[in-house]
C-alpha cells in the first residue's frame, strides 16, 4: 500500500533537514574532549597531506625547473649518434652534421611558440695540477642564457657569487662554489685541462678563473666549468656547429608541438627530446598518484577514531534514537543526524589541519628547506635544487580539505547507518 492509499500525506519530504543539521552541530559539543580528539585525528592527517603535497609539488617544480634550465630546455636537439653515446658526452657528433647552429636556430625560431634557441656544448675534461682530476666543460652563450634563465635555483638570480662571467671568446672560465672549495682554486688562478676535440685530438687549455658561481644544483656547482660557447666551439674544432641546441618555448605546454615541428624540420638523424620525457620528470609524475594513495590511507586510519566515536555515540544515545523514531523520524533522517555529526567532525578537523598545514607550507614556500642539510647526498643524483621551496597554493589546501571530509565522512557512514537499525521500542526499553 502506498501513502496515498493509506491517507498519509507526503509532507515528510519537505522539512526538518536544517533542524537535523542544527542537532548534529550541537551534538558534537556534548563531549568536547572526544570531539577534539576526532578533530585532532583528522587534522593531523590533513596537516601531513598539505605539507607533503606542498613538498612533493615543490620537488616536482624544482625538478622541472632544473631539467628545463640545465638539461633540456623545453626541447633539446642532439644528433642520433650523440644520443647513442651520450654517456661519453662526445663532441664529434654535432647537430645536423655540423651545420651552422645560427642557421639552424634561425629556422627553428620561425616555429610558432619558440622563444629562444641556444647552442650548448657539454664534454669531459681532465684537470692537471689539481686535487680534482675530472670536470665537465659547459660551453654556453653566457649573456644570452642569463638573459633568458635564472640560473640560480634558490635566489632566482644569475648565481654569480664572486668575480665575473667569462668574456665572449675569452680565455676564461667560471667554476662552481663546491668545485672551488674542493680544489682550493679561486679567482685569478689558471686551470690546466685536457679534453678531446671533434677530430679526436687532445686539446690542452689553460683558462683563467674569472668567476665563482653557486646555482644550488649540486651537480653543476661541484663538477661544471662554464666557458663561453664560441671559445669552446673553437677549442673543440666544431666549426660553426654545436653539440646540442636547447629551445625555450613561450609556454612549456607548447613543447610537444615544437618537438614535432623541430623533428620534422631536422629529420630523423637528430633526436628531439621534450623536457617532460626526462627520466626524473616522468618518475615524479608517477609519484603523485602513489602519494595520493598514501594520503588516503592516512585519512582512513584517522577516520577510525571518528568511526569509533560514532559507534560510542550511537550506544550512548540509544534512547534518543528511540525517541526520534517515536517522533516519526524515518531511518534516513536518523542516519542523517549521525552522518552530519561525522561530517562536522571531519570538516572542522580537516579545516584545522589545512590552516596549520597551510601556515607551515606558506612559511617554507618563502624560506626553503635545505635538502642537503637534511638528507646529505641522498638527492644528489636527482636534477633538483638543494633548497626546496614548498609549493603553496589554494588547490593543495582545498584538495586536502575535501579529501579529509570526503574520506572521513564516507567511512563514518557505515556506523551512522547502524543507528537506523535501532528499533525505537528496543531503544526505549534500555
Amino acid at each position, binding site marked *: 500500500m502506498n501513502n496515498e492509499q493509506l491517507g498519509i500525506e507526503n509532507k515528510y519530504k519537505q522539512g526538518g533537514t536544517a533542524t537535523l543539521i*542544527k542537532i548534529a552541530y550541537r551534538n558534537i559539543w556534548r563531549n568536547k574532549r572526544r570531539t577534539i580528539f576526532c578533530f585532532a585525528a583528522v587534522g593531523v592527517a590533513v596537516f601531513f597531506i598539505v605539507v607533503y603535497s606542498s613538498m612533493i609539488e615543490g620537488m616536482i617544480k624544482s625538478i622541472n625547473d632544473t631539467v628545463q634550465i640545465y638539461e633540456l630546455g623545453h626541447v633539446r636537439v642532439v644528433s642520433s649518434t650523440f644520443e647513442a653515446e651520450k654517456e661519453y658526452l662526445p663532441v664529434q657528433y654535432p647537430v645536423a652534421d655540423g651545420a651552422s647552429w645560427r642557421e639552424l636556430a634561425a629556422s627553428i625560431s620561425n616555429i610558432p611558440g619558440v622563444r629562444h634557441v641556444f647552442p650548448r656544448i657539454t664534454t669531459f675534461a681532465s684537470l692537471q695540477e689539481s686535487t680534482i682530476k675530472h670536470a665537465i666543460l659547459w660551453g654556453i652563450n653566457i649573456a644570452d642564457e642569463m638573459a633568458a634563465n635564472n640560473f640560480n635555483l634558490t635566489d632566482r638570480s644569475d648565481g654569480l657569487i664572486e668575480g665575473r662571467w667569462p668574456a665572449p671568446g675569452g680565455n676564461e672560465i667560471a667554476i662552481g662554489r663546491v668545485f672551488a672549495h674542493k680544489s682550493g682554486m679561486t679567482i685569478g688562478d689558471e686551470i690546466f685541462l685536457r679534453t678531446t676535440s671533434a677530430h679526436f685530438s687532445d686539446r690542452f687549455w689553460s683558462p683563467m678563473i674569472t668567476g665563482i658561481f653557486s646555482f644550488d644544483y649540486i651537480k653543476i656547482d661541484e663538477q661544471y666549468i662554464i666557458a663561453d660557447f664560441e671559445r669552446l666551439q673553437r677549442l673543440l674544432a666544431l666549426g660553426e656547429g654545436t653539440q646540442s641546441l636547447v629551445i625555450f618555448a613561450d609556454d612549456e605546454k607548447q613543447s610537444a608541438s615544437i618537438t614535432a615541428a623541430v623533428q620534422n624540420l631536422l629529420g630523423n638523424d637528430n633526436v628531439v627530446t621534450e623536457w617532460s620525457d626526462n627520466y626524473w620528470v616522468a618518475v615524479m609524475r608517477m609519484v603523485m598518484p602513489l602519494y595520493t594513495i598514501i594520503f588516503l590511507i592516512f585519512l582512513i586510519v584517522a577516520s577510525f577514531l571518528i568511526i569509533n566515536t560514532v559507534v560510542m555515540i550511537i550506544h550512548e544515545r540509544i534512547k534518543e534514537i528511540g525517541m526520534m523514531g517515536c517522533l516519526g523520524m524515518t531511518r534516513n533522517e536518523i542516519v542523517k543526524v549521525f552522518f552530519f555529526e561525522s561530517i562536522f567532525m571531519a570538516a572542522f578537523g580537516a579545516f584545522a589541519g589545512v590552516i596549520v598545514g597551510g601556515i607551515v607550507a606558506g612559511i617554507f614556500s618563502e624560506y626553503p628547506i635545505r635538502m642537503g642539510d637534511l638528507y646529505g647526498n641522498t638527492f644528489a643524483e636527482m636534477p633538483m635544487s638543494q633548497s626546496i621551496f614548498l609549493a603553496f597554493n589554494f588547490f593543495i589546501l582545498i584538495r586536502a580539505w575535501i579529501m579529509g571530509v570526503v574520506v572521513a565522512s564516507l567511512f563514518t557512514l557505515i556506523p551512522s547507518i547502524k543507528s537506523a537499525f535501532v528499533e525505537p*521500542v528496543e531503544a526505549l526499553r534500555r
Partner: protein
Amino acid sequence: MTVVKAENVIKDYGLNDQVIHALRGVNLEFQAGEFAAIAGPSGSGKSTFLHLAGCIDNLTAGSILVGGKDTGKMNRTQLAILRRQSIGFIFQAYNLIPVLSVEENISFPLTLLGIDKKEIRERTNQVLKEVGLDGMAKRRPKEMSGGQQQRVAIARALVKKPALILADEPTANLDSKIGREILELMLALNKSAGTTFIFSTHDTMVMDFARRLIRIRDGQIESDEIKG
C-alpha cells in the same frame, strides 16, 4: 470516531530461548477525545499495548487500526509518517533532545512535517502558553525541573495536534504535587482540544484522573470501566 481499534492482539517476545506472551488476544477500542488509563502491575503488558498502538513495535497476531488505517499493512516509513502526523508520545523520562532549547524541542515535530516557519512560531508560542512555560522558551532541558521538562514533552506531543497521545507512565518520575499538576494540564488539554490520551500507569492518581480505566494482567484485559 474510533481512533484506535485493537482486534485480538497477540504479542510474543523471545527471551533466552523462552517465549514471553506479553499480550494474549487483546480487544480494545478508543474513541476520539477519550482520557483513558491502562493500569496493571509490571509485566502485565500495558506498555507493550501502548508501543503497538504507537506503531513502534510489531504485532505477533491480530490487528491494530489507527485512525482507521491498518498498521500491520504499513512499511517502516509509512509507520514513521503516521507517527509523525497522528501520534504524540509522552515518556516517563521526558526524552527531550538535550541540545535543543524548549521552543526548538516543541517545534521539532512541526519542522519534520514541513510546516512553514511563521505557523511553527505561532503554534509553538501558543502551546508554550497552554502548558505554562511562557518565558522559558530559550532554556535547555537540563536547566529545568522534572515537572517543567514533562510540560515540554506534553507541549511537544500536543503541538502537531495529533489524533492520539500515548503517555507511558508520565508521572512516575514526578512528586505527587507536580504529578497532579501535569495530569490536570493534560485533562484540560484533552477537554479543550479533544485529543485522545491513553496512559499506561500503575499510579493511583492517574487512575483517578482517567475517565476510562482498563485493567490488564498477564496480557489480558481484566476490566474496562468507564467512569461517570
